């Protein structure tokens, strides 16, 4: 067990001794037998420790390092809170499911609306394949009906001519 004097010498070496005690220790060191040897031994030990103490320099900046510690503490606290609250984990499990289901529902409804008869946006391509006929088309969204009316081109010309003639008459 270290004596008070040895502890005082250690404190003196480390510069931690109050000024009023420094002189007292110096006086004892000068007068006491074997105290110089103790001083030398403690000095060597201190020097050895200083020279060989492993250094742990921070690679991150001080703020970043402490923010990481803060984050870990927060995460642990949250985990503890979650463990004590079963409802939270329930929400965590079902929230993505409910969100996904809502998105799918919205898509299905959207596609349903998109395909609904009222949404008659679909393009129609009509080609008259004969020089004798022509066609017209119309769509009734309310009746969900689409009609291509094919008629004789010659008849159309004839009716146009007769209409013109009747106008002249």
């Amino acid at each position, binding site marked *: 067990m270290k004596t008070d004097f040895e502890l005082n010498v250690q404190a003196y070496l480390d510069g931690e001794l109050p000024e009023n005690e420094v002189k007292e220790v110096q006086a004892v060191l000068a007068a006491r037998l074997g105290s110089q040897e103790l001083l030398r031994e403690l000095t060597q030990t201190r020097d050895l420790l200083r020279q060989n103490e492993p250094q742990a320099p921070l*690679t*991150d900046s001080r703020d970043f390092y402490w923010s990481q510690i803060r984050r870990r503490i927060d995460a642990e606290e949250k985990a503890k809170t979650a463990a004590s609250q079963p409802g939270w984990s329930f929400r965590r499990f079902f929230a*993505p*499911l409910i*969100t*996904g*289901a809502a*998105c*799918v529902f919205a*898509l*299905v409804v959207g*596609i349903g609306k998109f*395909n*609904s*008869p009222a*949404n*008659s946006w*679909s*393009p*129609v*391509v*009509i*080609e*008259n*394949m*004969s020089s*004798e*006929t022509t*066609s017209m*088309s*119309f769509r*009734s969204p309310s*009746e*969900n*009906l*689409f*009609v*291509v*009316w*094919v*008629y*004789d081109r010659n*008849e159309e010309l004839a009716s146009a001519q007769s209409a013109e003639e009747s106008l002249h008459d």
Partner: protein
Amino acid sequence: MIATKSWLRLNLRKSRSMINSYRFLPRLSGLILGVALVFLSQASVHAADLKLEATLVWGTNDEKSPDASHKPVDTVYAKKLAKYFKWKNYFEVNRQTVTIPSRQSKRLTMSKQCVIEITELEGEPIEVKLYGEGKLLNKFTKALTKGEIVAIAGDDKNESAWFVMIKEIEPKAEEELARKAAGEK
């Protein structure tokens, strides 16, 4: 050395942010899967065979058809036609159901003079070709939406008209048709 440390630190931060984003992957993948399933189910509807019903209708102002085999047209068709056309009566001349395999065509002889050819195209559209007395007269391509009736029509002799009404048969309607056919027999 300093550069290596900076690089390592940068990568460490990147990997941390990546790990954070990976936490959302299950949710994201679930959502994508859901969306994909919806689109696949939609796509599979159109990739399947197309079941259609084609009806040749004769529109006239006469009270009775000269052909005794003609019967008054279905009330649904009658109401729709009467709303837009001038004729008082509509008779069903011929009705056919057809299953068109995906991306294939089927010809339907509606009468001696009238033949239609229906092709199931990629996606929703169908192509309808009209042949009059063996001659291709008209062709149109149109998406067939649920419950929609597509008609190709024209004038006929004696101030009358003909209509070929085409509609997709839904599974329930198909069952009803089969039941009706069984009842008629």
